[in-house]
């Protein structure tokens, strides 16, 4: 009785197993299959007559079966866990794993093949996820590799473990030279060693650190960087690793320095005239008397303040793109003559000379703005030829444009300073050292004014012989209503 029950149970297990069971002849003809297998391939038990296993496979599977699987089975008697796709009527092929065992008859000839068929849908989707995860990881790695920032990983004590190409570009060290060294040795922090310890403590407490520091590059150059350090805790909450991102902030730092310099320069330039004005006013108030010299200084210094404020306003107009011209018929020769007269009145050391046509040279230009350019160029010529000499204002008609140049006999401008001369806040090292007043705005404003006219301005200079500043103004500007 027990044997019978056992047989029945085996039959039930066979039919209701969570995997497919399949028996075939050596040529693949299906002899028997359990319910799940039949359900997978969408066949009734009666449809099986003469059906071969390989006919249930996709074409690549069928080829693989005939060329690899069946010969291997004949050779070694078994094949373990090989992936196939089962064709199913009206549905997607089903991925399966098949394990087969050959049974021989008494004469030792292959008689039957028993196979276990496992549904590999889950496994296939795991494989796909794994592949996607790997692609994502590779993308992330590529981002790290190709980033222009230095992206580094560190042991909890700051020892460098990875060093990306961005770090090499930023600081010049190769990865081999850096891995194993401490990041702290590269960074100069505002607080010194105490800062190192404070950073380590913050990271150990699980908080990120953002700071600015100076890093020393391979060639000894100092690089301003922003550094972000992020702690990565281990399973017990301990500090397991640190990631660091260093970014070059040299440009921003240079801009900050330039702004600071500018502010201190503006302050200096505004306070000096104020000191003279207030000083003379207080002296006259206290003495109750009129000082000719005092009044004169108050007037010239308040004009100087007015010019400075005007220049600052012009610069902000230029920056905002709101420099508008009032074009009217203007005689360049008359403007040049009057500018030369004004300059003559301001200097005893220089001989200011005009060279140009005897008659007017007319164009539609902004008279006040051109006057401003003349004044700037002539003031520079006087300021930067302190030992005197000739200053020549030359006006020429070149056919389609008018040219004006102002030449001095000063010490000249070093060639390396020429390209930056018309930039904002630019002053040559010589100009700074000479202590000559100025914000470095005159040429910048002049260039903006000439370019607004559709013209151009440039400088030529020979050291020891003097400088010539020239601007060219077109008579008509294309596309502009007259």
């Amino acid at each position: 009785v027990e044997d019978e029950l056992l047989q029945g149970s085996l039959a039930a297990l066979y039919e209701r197993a969570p995997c497919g069971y399949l028996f075939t002849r050596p040529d693949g003809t299906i002899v028997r299959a359990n319910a799940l297998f039949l359900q997978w391939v969408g066949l009734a038990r009666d449809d099986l007559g003469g059906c071969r296993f390989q006919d249930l496979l996709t074409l690549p599977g069928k080829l693989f079966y005939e060329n690899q699987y069946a010969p291997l089975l004949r050779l070694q008697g078994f094949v373990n866990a090989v992936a196939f796709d089962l064709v199913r009527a009206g549905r997607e092929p089903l991925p399966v794993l098949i394990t087969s065992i050959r049974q021989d008859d008494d004469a030792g000839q292959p008689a039957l093949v028993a196979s276990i068929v496992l549904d590999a849908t889950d496994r296939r989707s795991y494989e796909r996820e794994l592949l996607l995860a790997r692609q994502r990881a590779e993308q992330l790695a590529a981002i790290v590799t190709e980033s222009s920032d230095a992206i580094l990983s560190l042991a909890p004590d700051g020892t460098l473990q990875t060093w990306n190409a961005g770090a090499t570009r930023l600081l010049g060290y190769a990865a081999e030279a850096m891995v194993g060294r401490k990041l702290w040795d590269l960074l100069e922090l505002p607080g010194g060693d105490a800062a190192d310890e404070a950073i380590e403590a913050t990271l150990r407490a699980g908080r990120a650190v953002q700071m600015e520091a100076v890093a020393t590059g391979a060639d000894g150059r100092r690089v301003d960087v922003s550094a972000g350090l992020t702690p990565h805790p281990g399973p017990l909450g301990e500090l397991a690793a640190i990631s660091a991102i260093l970014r070059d902030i040299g440009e921003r730092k240079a801009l900050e320095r330039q702004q600071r310099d500018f502010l201190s320069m503006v302050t200096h330039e505004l306070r000096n005239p104020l000191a003279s004005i207030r000083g003379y006013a207080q002296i006259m108030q206290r003495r109750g008397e009129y000082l000719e010299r005092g009044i004169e200084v108050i007037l010239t210094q308040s004009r100087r303040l007015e010019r400075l404020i005007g220049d600052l306003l012009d610069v902000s107009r230029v920056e905002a793109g709101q420099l508008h011209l009032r074009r009217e018929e203007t005689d360049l020769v008359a403007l040049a003559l009057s500018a030369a007269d004004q300059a003559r009145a301001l200097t005893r050391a220089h001989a200011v000379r005009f060279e140009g046509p005897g008659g007017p040279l007319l164009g539609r230009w902004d008279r006040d703005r051109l006057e401003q350019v003349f004044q700037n160029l002539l003031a520079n010529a006087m300021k930067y030829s302190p030992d005197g000499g000739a200053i020549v204002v030359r006006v020429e008609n070149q056919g389609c444009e008018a040219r004006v140049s102002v030449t001095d006999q000063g010490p000249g401008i070093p060639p390396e300073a020429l390209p930056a001369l018309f930039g904002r806040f630019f002053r040559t090292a010589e100009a700074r050292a000479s202590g000559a007043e100025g914000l470095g705005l005159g040429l910048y404003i002049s260039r903006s004014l000439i370019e607004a006219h559709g013209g151009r301005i440039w400088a030529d200079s020979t050291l020891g012989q003097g400088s010539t500043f020239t601007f060219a103004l077109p008579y008509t500007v294309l596309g502009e209503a007259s």
Partner: protein
Amino acid sequence: VTAVPFAADATPVVVVADDEIHVVDVLGLLLEPLGVRVVKAYNGEQALAAAREHRPQLVLTNVRMPKVGGIEVCRRLKDGQGNDSVAVVLITSLPHEDLPACGADDIIQKPFDSARVEECARRFLGR
């Protein structure tokens, strides 16, 4: 060199240095009524030369000047060689925090009040 350093009847000497002529003139007009002799300088080199020649009790110097700046003038006057009793006061438009340490006895901000300059001069000249 005609100045006699410690003559009993010597008029106190003040050296005033600034590259702004008008500022130097204003300081001269403020200080002369105090009964001092004002020696004018227009850059740091002239200020140092004037200090060597005239042995002043007080040097009022601007900071930003061509050739030698006021900070350097102060350091050289305070280096312990020669006239080390001289008081040096910086007159500057720069904020205090931008000035490096140089041993100056006081700092006057530009634009200054005449009363502040007089008070400072009296303090260092003992008048």
